[in-house]
């Protein structure tokens, strides 16, 4: 059966889920961190570190799921380090984020050197497209369990931030540290916990890269997803469920170049690959304004000041 241009659409939709999943985890992690009033630009490093850890642990233990867990723990450690450093007076969270990005990627490259060649067990996918006899469609509907987990986390995180005492505490700390201190809330501890948990999610996002798609460990594995997460969260208006839709959009945009290539449009391959970055920049230009604060922004956030 000839699918032609429909194939492009199907590939973009499949790519939205396949490429969007790491975006989803990183942006959820960034969203939680930013809700507590800190920005973590170091999630790019966390992602790479998570990818390396997940791959190495899966290779040694034979269990990809253990790899995912350890990737999360590695991310949590980096997140905790970031927020611990930031809790000192005069230490700038954006600058520490840049340093953590370089430190995380450097550490991952150092420790990951032996894992570039061998092949680790892959995370299983759930086949939702078995009913279709169009190979492109059934391939697009091979959905990884981590994506479903990400959807659940997005909904749960949104609900918890809105309806639980824990969520309220995070939001108070993010809106006004002074008010939180007046209420007797431990501001630094809540921020450290939120950033560490955010790092955990970003680490899982990294393990998806190495254990499912593109399914290898190499030094060029991540290409700024951790960074774009910051802009995704702005676009999602600091809502976890919003992060889900935005991640799918970005995944689809990133899949456009390769899908067009499959129907013979090869010119501008690199330009198509740059679409997510251009979109991110465009979103920031459109949504930011010097005259007003963004709707939904946590007021302690330095990024919008």
């Amino acid at each position: 059966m000839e699918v032609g241009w429909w194939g492009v659409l199907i590939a973009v939709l499949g790519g939205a889920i396949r490429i969007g999943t790491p975006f989803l985890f990183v942006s959820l992690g960034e969203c939680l961190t930013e809700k507590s009033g800190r920005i973590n630009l170091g999630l790019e490093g966390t992602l790479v570190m998570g990818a390396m850890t997940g791959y190495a642990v899966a290779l040694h233990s034979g269990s990809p799921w253990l790899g995912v867990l350890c990737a999360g723990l590695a991310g949590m450690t980096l997140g905790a380090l970031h927020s611990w450093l930031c809790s000192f007076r005069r230490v700038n969270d954006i600058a520490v984020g840049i340093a953590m990005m370089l430190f995380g990627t450097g550490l991952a490259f150092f420790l990951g050197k032996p894992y570039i060649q061998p092949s680790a067990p892959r995370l299983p996918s759930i086949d939702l497209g078995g009913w279709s006899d169009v190979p492109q469609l059934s391939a697009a509907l091979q959905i990884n369990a981590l994506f479903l987990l990400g959807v659940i986390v997005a909904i749960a995180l949104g609900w918890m931030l809105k309806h639980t005492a824990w969520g309220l505490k995070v939001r108070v700390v993010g809106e006004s540290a002074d008010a939180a201190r007046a209420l007797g809330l431990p501001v630094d501890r809540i921020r450290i916990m939120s950033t560490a948990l955010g790092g955990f999610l970003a680490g899982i996002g990294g393990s998806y890269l190495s254990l499912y798609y593109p399914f290898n460990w190499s030094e060029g594995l991540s290409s700024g997803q951790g960074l774009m997460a910051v802009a995704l969260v702005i676009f999602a208006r600091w809502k976890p469920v919003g992060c889900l839709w935005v991640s799918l959009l970005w995944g689809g945009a990133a899949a456009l170049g390769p899908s067009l290539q499959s129907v013979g449009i090869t010119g501008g391959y690199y330009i198509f690959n740059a679409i997510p970055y251009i979109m991110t920049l465009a979103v920031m230009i459109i949504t930011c304004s010097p005259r007003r604060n963004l709707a939904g922004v946590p007021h302690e956030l330095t990024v919008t000041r």
Partner: protein
Amino acid sequence: MPHTLNKALEPFLIIVGSLSVSMVLFGAFVAAAGANPFEVYQTMYRAAFGTSFSWQNTLIRAAPLMLTALCTALPGYLGLIIIGGEGAVVMGGLFAAIAALTIPDASPMVVLTTMALAGMAAGAIWLAIGGALRHYRAVNETISSLLLNYIAIALLNHLVTSTFRDPESLNHPSTHHIGEANMIGLIPGTDLHWGLVFGIVACILSWFLMHHTVFGFSSQIAGGNVRAAQIAGLPVGRLILIVCCVAGAAGGLAGMVEVAAIHGRANDTLNANYGYAGILVAFVARNNPLAIIPVAVLLGGIRASSGLLQRVHELPDATVLVMQGIIFLVILFSETLYGRFSRMPKQGAV
């Protein structure tokens, strides 16, 4: 102790102390990786500063770092954290090469001048985009400048694989060669190209601009307090744009030197992480253009030692990245120490 002495001594002591702490931490790290830290440091010293050959290796790497450090340091005076040096290098190198290829029959001097101007203009525009978006749209300049790095690399890859591709560059898509006659020569009596001189001169000029002109003074005021600067009638937007242009021009010049002195053509080797290492240099130097020179030499030395570390101690090439990361984190942490050692004036003493 007089207050002025304190002010000069404090940063020096804190930076030296931070570097020492970083060395201890990194030593512990390589020890955990199974290498003897003392021997590792000995190797690094030998590879970076031990012989005249290693000095040349170090200085060749230090030259672009001086220029890319300015990309972060100069906007730092205005309170901006711009990390777009990588993009400025890539755009500078790309457009310098394109400029050279459009005038194939001109004399080498004309070609090099045109390349330098084109590279600096491209870098200036690229970095100024981030500054302009910050001022006019309140877009966070750190994120926008980093995104622009990725966009610059995509543009480079696109142009060297399409419009400007030399059909003979099969495995490594590149532009045509700018011509051997047009390459920047070496400093007489050395194996060093003129890029090092460009770097040092750019740092000195930047220092003069920021510390000894009204323009630099205005920038420092705007960096300290935007509201106060606006009330004083300073054109904050124009200051941001000009400073970002000067900073970007430095990065663009670094890209031009990479093309005109080393590769002879523009290709993805321009994307050699000099931009990111430059951020670290700027932070360690606390944005001071004069301090950038020795810090760039130090970091150039660390990067130059990577190869020997691999051969002698079988440490992966990412070892120097880990060291850079550790230094970076410790330096940022040390920010919290400022003001804790200087004596406060006693209450009521005034």
